[in-house]
């Protein structure tokens, strides 16, 4: 077997690593939150608490996997599967390093956006089929939030697409050899960052699953491994957004030659993940209508303006 884009070895290793990293993030997040809140976090199970994930997995696999009798079985079972499938498929187009990746697609960004928009079904079906008012409220919030933030998530990317002239993520990385897009596309970066957090409903935008208000929202009725899939799906989404930010704005695997490219990618992506966890530790959750107003009345015009100015500058300089 050869080590090239799309080989089975490549696909298997990427799939395994991505799921492994997403699971390990459970531990990373708790340790980092502890660090920033002047406590230790899990440190008992294994070396520095590294086996905490294994313990959590054992617990979650052996828990009773309960389907409420009033729930709509088909959608209830389908919902957690959707989020895992959708986000794992999105990883197919991410270029991790030269020669490391699943597909080299000409519609890479669009594919990620399509998958992200399908991710909304997981949350909505989960909340709707649970037949529980908190779950329904969470699903309603999630639907509105994800549909709105998808819009300018897409638009904020178009500046990068215009600069590189391609939807292909691998070509976008190569186009950044003479300068990362964070500098010309800073506004696009900020908007994509915010929209990405809202899209993966992480704190501070975890309004669909706000524990204090609506008792963890759409996955209120879920237990056992179905809840675990929502849980790991959320971390997978986190890794995906971090990888996308790395690829689109921070030059992907590009970096000084003393480290192999894949390490540069990992370092940058981990930096973003740590930043997301810092956001969780620091920023309180906005109110639901504040989030929507902020999105539609501030971020959407800003992203359109950003696209307009980028386009104008490209036209003038060409």
């Amino acid at each position, binding site marked *: 077997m050869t080590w090239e884009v799309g080989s089975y070895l490549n696909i298997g290793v990427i799939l395994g690593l991505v799921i492994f990293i997403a699971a390990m993030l459970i531990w990373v997040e708790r340790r980092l939150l*502890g*660090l*920033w*809140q*002047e*406590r*230790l976090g899990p440190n008992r199970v294994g070396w520095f608490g590294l086996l905490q994930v294994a313990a959590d997995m054992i617990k979650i696999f052996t828990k009773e996997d309960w389907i409420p009798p009033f729930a709509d079985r088909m959608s209830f079972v389908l919902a957690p599967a959707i989020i895992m499938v959708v986000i794992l498929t999105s990883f197919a187009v991410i270029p991790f390093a030269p020669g490391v990746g699943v597909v080299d697609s000409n519609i890479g960004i669009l594919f990620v956006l399509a998958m992200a928009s399908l991710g909304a079904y997981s949350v909505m079906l989960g909340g709707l089929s649970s037949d529980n008012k908190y779950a329904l409220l969470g699903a309603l919030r999630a639907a509105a939030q994800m549909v709105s933030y998808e819009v300018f998530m897409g638009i904020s990317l178009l500046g990068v697409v215009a600069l590189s002239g391609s939807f292909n993520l691998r070509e976008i990385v190569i186009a950044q050899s003479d300068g990362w897009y964070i500098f010309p596309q800073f506004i696009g970066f900020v908007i994509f960052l915010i929209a990405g957090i809202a899209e993966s409903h992480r704190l501070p935008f975890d309004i669909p699953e706000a524990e204090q208000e609506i008792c963890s929202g759409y996955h209120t009725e879920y237990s056992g491994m179905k809840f675990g899939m929502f849980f790991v799906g959320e971390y997978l989404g986190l890794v995906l957004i971090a990888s996308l930010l790395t690829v689109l704005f921070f030059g992907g695997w590009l970096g000084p030659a003393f480290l192999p490219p894949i390490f540069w990618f990992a370092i940058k992506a981990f930096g973003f993940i740590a930043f997301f966890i*810092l*956001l969780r*530790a*620091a*920023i309180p959750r906005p109110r639901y209508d504040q989030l929507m107003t902020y999105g539609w009345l501030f971020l959407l015009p800003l992203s359109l303006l950003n696209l307009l100015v980028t386009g104008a500058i490209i036209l003038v300089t060409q």
Partner: protein
Amino acid sequence: MFNLIKDTLLSQVVTLWHVFSHAFVKADTVQYPEEQPYMFPRWRGRIILSRDPDGEERCVACNLCAVACPVDCIALQKTEDEDGRWYPEFFRINFSRCIMCGFCEEACPTYAIQLTPDFEMAEYTRQDMVWEKEDLLISGTGKYHDYSFYRVAGKSIKGKDKGEALNEAAPVDVRSLLT
């Protein structure tokens, strides 16, 4: 416009920085089983029955603690010895109900019942949480070393009533306060 940016954007960044700077502060966590925390002497933990300096048990079975207990976890039965001194026949505390409020200690007129700085009382069965008098009674005086109720209150023995000994003041008539 500047104020808007300052309030919305800058304040968030400042918050992020403040939280991030906590990474360089030592954690407050006490690693409990290996590293025992300092327990304050007045910590309200496990309940004990103490003895007076002469080694007699202090409890006079007045039932005030049982009355004061908000969760009714104390049960006792009065009995007398040949001198007519009251003492509890049994004294039972159900620690699965006890909320460590310390009301019993406040109600006790003889400093017999006391709360101690011990909290490691977990048991595997609920029945083991019920402590009898022999479990509760300690051989020491607890927090009040020199206090003996009968030295303060006086004691009637054969041929001598309260307040009739050589250096003994007459007992206070509590009903005089009512007039």
